[in-house]
C-alpha cells in the first residue's frame, strides 16, 4: 500500500495550558484529584491538557465539546493571545520551518498573526474595534500585514465586505450598530483581509438566528472551496460541525477524548461522552 505523502500545514503536539500555579496534588502524572479541569486544592484550571492535532492543507478541522472544555483556550493559544504552559506548534511554511512557534519572540508571533493567520472570535468585541468603521477595522489588519497602498486596500476591503454581504453603503458604519450576524461577518471579512493560509473560527454561528447561521456556513464553505484556506472550526453545535468539517475532535475537560471522520463521530461514536453528546441530539 502506498502512503500519503501529504504533510500537515499546522501541527500541534501536547499543548497544555493551565491557569494557576499547580500544586503537589495536581502536578502528579495523570493529574488525579481534579474536578473536571479544576484542582480543588490550589484552584488551578487545566484548560487544555496534552492536546495534539494536525490540520492539513485546505481542510476544515472541527472541534466540539461542552462549555468549558477548553476550545476557546486552545484557539487563543494557537493565535498567541495566551501563552501555553507547554507544547509545540509547527507550521509547514518555508518561512517558519522547523521551529516551535510557541517559543519564538513576540515580534515573530506578531508576524505570524499578521501574515499567516485569520481569527474570528466567539465574542465580536474581542475581534473588532466597535468604534471604528467596518472598513477601518479591515484596514487595520491590512496595514499590519504590510499594506501601504490606500486605494488598493480600500477596494480589497470593499470586495471582502461584499463577499460577506455587508452592503457597501454601511461600510463606514461602526460595527457596534450592527446585528450579531453582521458583526460576525465583518469579523470574517477582517480575518480574510491578509489572505491567510490558516483561519480560526470560534463559535462563528452561535447566537445567530437560523437563516443567518445558514448564510455564514455557506460563506465559510465557499471560502474553503474558492481560497483553499485551512481552518479550525470550534462549535458546541454538532449540526454546524457536520456541515463544515471533514474531521472532528471531541474535547472534554481540556482533553481530546475522541477524533475521527465527522460522519463516523456522529454515527459511530465510541467514547461515553461523545455518545451522550450525539444521542442527546437525536
Amino acid at each position, binding site marked *: 500500500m502506498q502512503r500519503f505523502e501529504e504533510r500537515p500545514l499546522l501541527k500541534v503536539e501536547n499543548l497544555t495550558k493551565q491557569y494557576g500555579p499547580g500544586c503537589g496534588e495536581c502536578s502528579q502524572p495523570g493529574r488525579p484529584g481534579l474536578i473536571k479541569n479544576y484542582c480543588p486544592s490550589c484552584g488551578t484550571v487545566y484548560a487544555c491538557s496534552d492536546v495534539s492535532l494536525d490540520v492539513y492543507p485546505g481542510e476544515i478541522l472541527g472541534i466540539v465539546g461542552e462549555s468549558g472544555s477548553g476550545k476557546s483556550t486552545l484557539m487563543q493559544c494557537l493565535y498567541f493571545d495566551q501563552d501555553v504552559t507547554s507544547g509545540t506548534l509547527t507550521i509547514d511554511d518555508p518561512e517558519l520551518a522547523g521551529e516551535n512557534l510557541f517559543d519564538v519572540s513576540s515580534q515573530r508571533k506578531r508576524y505570524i498573526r499578521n501574515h499567516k493567520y485569520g481569527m474570528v472570535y466567539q465574542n465580536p468585541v474581542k475581534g473588532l474595534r466597535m468604534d471604528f468603521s467596518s472598513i477601518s477595522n479591515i484596514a487595520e489588519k491590512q496595514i499590519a500585514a504590510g499594506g501601504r497602498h490606500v486605494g488598493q486596500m480600500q477596494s480589497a476591503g470593499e470586495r471582502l465586505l461584499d463577499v460577506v454581504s455587508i452592503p457597501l453603503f454601511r461600510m463606514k458604519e461602526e460595527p457596534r450598530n450592527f446585528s450579531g450576524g453582521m458583526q460576525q461577518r465583518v469579523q470574517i471579512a477582517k480575518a480574510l483581509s491578509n489572505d491567510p493560509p490558516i483561519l480560526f473560527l470560534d463559535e462563528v454561528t452561535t447566537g445567530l438566528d437560523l437563516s443567518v447561521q445558514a448564510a455564514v456556513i*455557506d460563506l465559510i464553505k465557499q471560502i474553503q472551496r474558492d481560497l483553499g484556506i485551512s481552518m479550525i472550526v470550534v462549535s458546541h453545535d454538532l449540526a454546524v460541525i457536520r*456541515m463544515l468539517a471533514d474531521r472532528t475532535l471531541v474535547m472534554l475537560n481540556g482533553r481530546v477524548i475522541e477524533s475521527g*471522520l465527522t460522519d463516523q463521530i456522529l454515527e*459511530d461514536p*465510541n467514547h461515553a461522552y461523545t*455518545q451522550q453528546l450525539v*444521542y442527546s441530539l437525536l
Partner: protein
Amino acid sequence: MVMLEVKDFGKRFTSHHLNTTRKAVEGISFSLEQGGFIGIVGKSGSGKSTILKSIYRTYLPDEGEIWFDSERFGRIDLLKAEERQVIWLRKHEIGYVSQFLNVMPRTTARELVEQALLGMGESHEAATIKAEQSLRHFDLDERLWDTFPNTFSGGEKLRLNIAIATVKKPRLLLLDEPTASLDYQSKLKVREVIEKLKADGTTLVGIFHDLEFMEGLCDCVYDMNEKALRGMPEVQR
C-alpha cells in the same frame, strides 16, 4: 481483477449508557470483480447497512479486513486506512448513495454536483460542463437544476444523489436501499440509472428490499442468513 475483498469482517457496537456491547455482524467474507454488482439480502437488522457503512468508514470496523483496489493507493485495507486517505477515496474513488439526501442546505442541485467536482480539483469551467452532463444523464428535469432539493420528490432526490455520487466516476459505488419509498415508475428510472452505471464499468454493492428489482442487474447475491454468495435466484411470477 478484484476490486473489493471483504475478509472475516465483523462489527460490534458498544453503548456506554446501556452498558452493552452487541455484535451487529460477524464472519462476513465476499469478493467482487471490477465492474461486478453484488446485491446484499437479509432480514431487517441483519447488518446489511453496517457492511456498507463500514466500507465507507462511516462506521469504524473492528474485525477482519476490507481490501479495496485503489487507483491512488494500490491495494488498501479500508479498516486501517488513515482518515485523510479515506477522505481522498470518498472524494475520488468511492461513492455512497442512500435514500436520504444529506447535503448542505440552501444549495441548488446544480451547485451540489459542481461542488463534488470542485472538491476533487476540477476547474470551475469543467465542473459546470460535467455537472450539466450528469444532471441530464440521470434525467433530472432541467427546471429543477437551479432550485433547492428540499422540495424535490423522492425519485428526484435520489437521482440527484446518484448524480452527486457518480460525477466523480467512482470505481466503487455503494447503494443502500436507494429505491426504498419510491413508486414503481421511479424505481424503473433508478434501474435505468444503475444499468447506465454498469455500462460505464462501475463496480457496485447494493442493498434492495425487492429481489425482483435486481433481476438481470446483479451478478450475484450475498445472503446474510447463509453468509454466502449465490447466483441470482429465479424470480417467481
